[in-house]
């Protein structure tokens, strides 16, 4: 067999194939439910109910989507320029570290000054954390996939050291966690009485911001050109290495905001389980969104819904909640395949 490019794919192809990917994912999920001895329809019913079935569930899903939108944007921006940032997890944690460090420093300044400082500090930390692998890539040819992956482990151990050592909460009764942020430095709720913090609003704002940068600015065009064909971009006079460095700064900063938002919006303190793999899940979010920043919002909410729904389902039915991770991995693989098949036709030789 061989793959033949399609000049103008039909609407049926463009919509049908991604839909087929979703159907395949649902079939895989049904199979898993059957293996676990549960009724597939009832299982999916419980997942949907747990994700969006009540006001509480829906808000839980949106809260869970918040870090995923940040890390999804980070990955989408980087992957668009073919900078393989698999280190969003590390950038998230470093962002959280700086957020807590500034927030608990007792600066005595008004919250309106300190909160932006926390966010800004987080962005700088995350940006620098990705700049290093990006420079190693452009200057020395070191593959950034491996370096960013390895840095995740280093960053988490660093956090573990901090919350058991210099940043440990003296009131934490020996529990490894940082001091809590003062109440004044917590992100306020978006609507009074609704458990949804401004981290979500910031995520939406940045999704639009990234979309504008990507479609309306020279930098966005350059990032896309570098991703499509770096050699051609270089011939066209685009400073490829500088664009990759700029992409790294943006991507790392976005991922770090996930850490800022989780600490300042939700948890209030830094712990080792701040992120259950939001950095890695960001890759799924970005790919499901076909790297489109606005799509990242939709995909982030969808992925969060699957996690929240599966958690709630597994409490009611005897199906392990890991079904969520399997479903999302399946969705990722089938969606990548479906998106390719919208552009290529399979031919027999």
């Amino acid at each position, binding site marked *: 067999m061989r793959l033949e490019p399609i000049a103008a794919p039909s609407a049926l192809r463009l919509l049908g194939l991604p839909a087929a990917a979703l159907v395949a994912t649902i079939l895989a999920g049904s199979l898993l439910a059957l293996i676990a001895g549960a009724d597939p329809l009832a299982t999916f019913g419980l997942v949907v109910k747990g994700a969006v079935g009540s006001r509480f569930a829906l808000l839980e899903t949106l809260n869970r989507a918040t870090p995923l939108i940040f890390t999804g944007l980070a990955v989408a921006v980087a992957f668009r320029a073919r900078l393989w940032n698999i280190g969003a997890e590390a950038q998230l944690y470093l962002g959280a570290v700086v957020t807590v460090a500034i927030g608990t420093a007792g600066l005595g300044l008004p919250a309106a000054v300190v909160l932006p400082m926390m966010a800004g500090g987080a962005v700088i930390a995350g940006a620098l954390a990705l700049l290093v692998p990006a420079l190693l890539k452009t200057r020395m040819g070191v593959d950034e996939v491996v370096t960013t992956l390895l840095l995740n482990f280093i960053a988490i151990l660093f956090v573990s050291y901090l919350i058991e050592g210099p940043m440990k909460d003296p009131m934490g009764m020996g529990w490894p966690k940082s001091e809590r942020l003062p109440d004044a430095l917590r992100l306020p709720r978006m609507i009074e009485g609704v458990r949804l913090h401004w981290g979500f609003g910031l995520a939406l704002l940045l999704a639009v911001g990234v979309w504008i940068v990507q479609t309306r600015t020279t930098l966005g065009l350059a990032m896309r050109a570098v991703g499509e064909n770096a050699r051609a971009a270089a011939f066209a006079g685009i400073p490829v290495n500088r664009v990759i460095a700029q992409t790294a700064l943006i991507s790392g900063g976005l991922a770090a905001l996930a850490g800022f938002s989780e600490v300042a919006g939700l948890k209030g303190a830094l712990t080792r389980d701040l992120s259950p793999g939001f950095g890695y899940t960001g890759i799924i979010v970005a790919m499901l969104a076909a790297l489109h920043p606005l799509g990242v919002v939709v995909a982030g909410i969808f992925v969060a819904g699957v996690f929240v729904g599966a958690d709630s389902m597994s409490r009611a039915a005897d199906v392990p909640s890991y079904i969520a991770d*399997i479903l999302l991995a399946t969705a*990722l693989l089938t969606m990548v395949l479906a998106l390719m098949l919208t552009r290529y036709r399979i031919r027999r030789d």
Partner: protein
Amino acid sequence: MEILEILLSASFWAAVVRIASPLIFATMGELICERAGVLNLGIEGIMVVGAFAGWMAVYSGTDLWTGVAVAAVAGMAFGALHALLTVVFGLSQHVVGLGVTLLATSSTYFAYRLALPEVTSPPRIAPFEPLAIPVLSQIPILGPALFAQTALTYLAFAVVAVVAWTLYRTPLGLALRAAGENPAAVAAQGLSVTGLRMGAVIAGSGLMAVGGAFLTMSAFSSFFFEMVNGRGWICIALVVFGAWRPGKALLGALLFAAFDAFQIRLQQTGIGQDLPYQLFLMLPFALSILALVVMSRRASVPAALMIPWRKGER
């Protein structure tokens, strides 16, 4: 003084070889894939699958070698999925590899929870016992390190020899390396680039899974979540460090294991008490990055690595 004591103890060198064993299997697996032109980022998840499948098989009553075979087959199944998506359909090797790792890891955890719903600590199996080779194992220091290991460790060294011999001394190896350097030339010879690459990814994934199985069936005797803990990613760094050559990669794995064994022992000394233990745990990952940076200047990366092959396309 303490450092010298560590380096002269037989148990240290035995630990080096033991720690290196799973890395050797998985590094050889990744090396085969990459020499054929495919980056296999599924390695981390495939090691998890192997660790679980082999252990579970033995726990269900098979003998140890059947368990190793089960692990290899489970790994090959995920390898086949990886190969189908990256080789046949030419999808991004980064994305598919990470997807396979996520799928393999989560499927394993799902299966573990289903198989052992109510356990707080995982059951143990009777793992591979050390097999002392008469006379040779009596050599001071070197003897216990090289000749009093489990059968799986001996197998790891045998695998290196077989991989090296196959890659450099057989027509198959030549074709495989050519598929990673110049697939068009392979196709011009009338050979199937797709077939060669698929075979390499599937075989390599089998080795990765055996590397995972070493953890549950030789190094330890139970399966824990997150027990692979980044070893797969380290093996990818080891392939680069070994300049895509089996012998050098073996040396890299041993060198790496020596550092790892050393830091474990250093933690228990006076120096170790004064430093945070996280610093020691970071060392393997930091070393891998350092190795990548140092080796980057003379990297001999396969020319067609990560470039999908589409027949008739230029």
